[in-house]
């Protein structure tokens, strides 16, 4: 029966994939690399900085190996048919991120900053929590369709999470962007990272129900299917929400991320290109509109257009200007094709946020063009595995949720990497998995958990047809 899965006509559907290999051993082999590569990188940093293998190498290697092992066992037990690439890729990025964070911890320049904390041990803790969350998702989310029931609760949750940073006393304005909350004893949290998942659940549930109305009831105009006025409602609401985020939290990245995710999901749900056109027009109008009066956004755009001027202003001591953009560009340029080697660059010159928003610059300087290309391709691979999962999923909710999460992940990578590399204005988001930050690590491990759950469901062999007494009954109908 397994031969049916190999026929070209069925290549996107795994229905009937009875006996398909679970690929768990492939995953284990890949995980081995995902642990060994960061361990070598860690040794490399120690040798470059202190001329000796770092003392924590063994515990670090064992720790990362243990975490990866736990993740793998959970997948083997609770999602045996899951995609074999997602866990190793995420582990590799997380491990490399830890190494680079530890490397930046060794910088005397960064140690002298008032905001300095030894970030690597904390990040290791966040990673452990992240993988714990990943396991929890696998254990308790037996079927992703359960999430459908929480469509509107998710919406409510996402809105609360998004509004939290604006609550007086709770929110914190860190260098212009109000996307943080301070929890006493826990430190800072970026609720937007979690809102991303909640919103994906809400959009998937909502669109699954409304997709026919949105797709079919439309007028054709100049080759485009224009939606009816009343169907424009939801997209207008989400658009407005994004604008409000931009205005009140002054965060271009989060705003772009949510709106982009919604447009992607809307397009997939309705198969109407017109939504894309609408989405692009609306986001352009919104961005230009807000930029015309919001000084923080204007300044980000100015810094993007002329980073050197921004650098000079910051050197001249003009308040509100930052040398970071230019320092990041210098870091990339100084890395060149092959990089300086781990531990031998000077990306600490970026100072504040060198290990979070700007961590990619350290990759660029120390691992060079080659390293950044590899890292970007790993991100690309995660995204494409996510979209592949959406293709393979058998239910529309699963398809929408998987594509929403993967699309959001792709947009986030684009917005952050593009910002740091000066392709687009800089935003206050972090590179998933590699950047220092608990919220980001936790939320992205949860995201990978959900994708793994969907892919497991998608690739799981269909149960053998049960003998249904009703079937026989209908067959033995006789005229009486």
């Amino acid at each position, binding site marked *: 029966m397994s031969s049916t899965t190999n026929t070209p006509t069925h290549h*996107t559907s795994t229905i009937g994939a009875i006996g398909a290999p679970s690929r768990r051993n492939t995953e284990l082999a890949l995980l081995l690399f995902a642990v060994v590569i960061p361990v070598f990188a860690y040794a490399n940093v120690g040798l470059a900085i202190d001329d000796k293998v770092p003392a924590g190498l063994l515990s670090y290697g064992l720790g990362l190996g243990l975490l990866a092992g736990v993740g793998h066992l959970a997948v083997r037990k609770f999602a045996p048919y899951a995609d074999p690439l997602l866990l190793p890729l995420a582990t590799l990025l997380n491990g490399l991120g830890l190494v680079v964070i530890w490397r930046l911890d060794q910088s*005397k*320049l960064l140690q*002298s900053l008032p905001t300095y904390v030894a970030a690597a041990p904390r990040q290791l803790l966040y990673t452990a929590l992240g993988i714990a969350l990943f396991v929890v998702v696998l254990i308790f989310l037996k079927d992703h369709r359960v999430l459908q029931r929480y469509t509107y609760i998710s919406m409510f949750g996402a809105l609360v999470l998004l509004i939290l940073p604006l609550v007086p006393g709770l929110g914190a304005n860190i260098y212009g962007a109000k996307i943080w909350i301070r929890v006493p004893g826990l430190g800072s949290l970026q609720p937007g990272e979690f809102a991303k998942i909640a919103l994906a659940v809400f959009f998937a549930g909502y669109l699954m129900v409304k997709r026919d109305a949105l797709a079919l009831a439309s007028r054709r105009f100049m080759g485009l299917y224009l939606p009816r006025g009343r169907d424009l409602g939801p997209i207008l609401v989400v658009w407005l929400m994004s604008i409000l985020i931009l205005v009140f939290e002054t965060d271009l990245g989060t705003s772009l991320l949510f709106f982009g995710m919604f447009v*992607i999901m809307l*397009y*997939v*749900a309705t*198969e109407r290109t017109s939504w894309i056109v609408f989405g692009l027009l609306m986001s352009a109008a919104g961005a230009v509109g807000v930029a015309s009066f919001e000084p923080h956004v204007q300044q980000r755009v100015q810094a993007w257009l002329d980073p*050197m001027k921004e*650098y000079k202003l910051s050197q001249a001591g003009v308040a509100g200007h930052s040398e970071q953009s*230019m320092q990041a*560009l*210098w870091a*990339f*340029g*100084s*890395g*060149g*094709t092959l990089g300086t080697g781990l531990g031998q660059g*000077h990306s600490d*010159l970026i100072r504040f946020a060198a290990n979070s928003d700007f961590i990619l610059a350290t990759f*660029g300087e120390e691992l*060079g*063009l080659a390293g*950044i*290309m590899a890292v*970007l*391709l790993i*991100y*690309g691979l995660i*995204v*494409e595995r996510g*979209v*592949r999962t*959406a*293709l393979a999923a058998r239910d*529309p909710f699963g*398809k*929408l949720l998987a*594509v929403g999460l*993967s*699309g959001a992940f*792709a*947009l986030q*990578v*684009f917005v952050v*990497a*593009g910002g740091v*590399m*000066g*392709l687009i204005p800089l935003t206050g988001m972090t590179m998933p998995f590699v950047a220092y930050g608990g919220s980001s690590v936790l939320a992205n491990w949860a995201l990978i958990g959900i994708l793994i759950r969907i892919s497991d469901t998608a690739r799981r062999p269909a149960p053998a047809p049960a003998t249904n007494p009703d079937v026989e009954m209908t067959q033995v109908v006789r005229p009486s």
Partner: protein
Amino acid sequence: MNKPLRRIAIFCGLLVLTLLLRDNWLQYVKADSLKDDPKNRRVTIARYSTPRGDIIVDGDPITGSTKTSKSGLNDLEYKRTYKDGPMWAPVTGYASQAFGANQLESIEDGILTGTDDRLFFRNTLDMITGKQKQGGNVVTTLNAAAQKAAYDGLKKQGGKGAVAAIDPSTGKILALASYPSYDPSTFAGNSTSTDSKNWTALQKKNNPSDPMLNRALRETYPPGSTFKVVTAAAALENGLYTSADEATDSPLPYIMKGTTTELKNEGNIPCKNATLRIALRYSCNTVFGKIGSDLGNDKMLAEAKKFGFDSEQFTPVRSSASVFSDNMNSSQTALSSIGQFNTAATPLQMAMVASAVANNGKLMKPYMVDKLQSSNLDTISQTEPEELSQPLSAKNAQILQSMMETVVKEGTGTKAQISGVTVGGKTGTAQHGVENSENPYAWFISYAKLPDGSSPVAVATVIEDDNANRDDISGGGLAAPIAKSVMEAVINSKK
């Protein structure tokens, strides 16, 4: 839903592709310009990550490098040091961790830090053998004894001033002193408490005597009567007069053409129809003013340009362009021809004038870098002497020499006499300030000629002394003794 999903997959792929392209642009196409951007801190870190190569005079380094304390946030491992910093500052310039570099330190930075492409092979070899990258050396043409004589002379004098000395036959710069000077060691580091304070104190706005100005190369002064050597050369070259001892057509008093103003001489001196020799000996304004007026602006300008006026010299440290103006009327040309009006010259320029006369009319291109060496003393590049122009024929040069030698033997320049050596020279006292209210500049240009006919040194000295008595200032009195000691130092070092 699968068709849009595939399109989304392509879209996400394009996002990643865009990032890859951008990264290639940044890290491949733009990499070098970002990496070498002088504002990029890494450039400074690299410059001071290894001991800097040295600047060498007479086989001895006049610079050095010292390890800085690695405490705190100091990311720069080595710091520049200077021996006799104030004396050599006009040659070396400075290399400061906090304030960048200038002059030789900046121009030859690639060699000194070891990043120059010409050191590529050496560096690759060092990388393979595991040796630390080392900077190369810059070997200068300077003469330590002459430089010391020049600097000490200026220092003893106490006022502002400068000396430039050249080897006439090659163009090698032998001395280049400026006073008051500064010690580049005092701000070579990046400490805000000491280096920044010292730097700030040296800036012109805080120190009116402007010690960081390289007067030998960058300051132009009215050359006064020393310019009469150029005017005399123009008269001989253009055939206005053909010998030193032929009477000139020079009325006294001389009313400048097109004006009713009389051009006066300093004191009652025998200038009426004087020969060129007598006119130069007594420094007759009337004779040389009229020569300039007779020859006209164009011919005077052409001759001045042949001597190097109106163009910058790259030694390789840039010197300011000396000035002889164009489009002047007859009386302005007359004034310019005695080194007044717009005429202005750097000490280097006037040393070039003396050197061209001494070198039988050939002007050699002045230079101060003899060769560049790699860290293991292999020569990477050697500067060859180069003829810049021939302002006057050998015959006319010899006529001019005999005139200048008369000046030192029995004229205004007797204080420059050296026993056993023939010295030719010309004094100058240039007026400046509105209505000549300020103290004039004392000039002396000269060359020495050994008994074998060779000429090892030509010197120009200028002194601007605000404190001296106005009557005391004369090229012969203040500037000639310094020129003499510089020439003696060069001659003695040849023995």
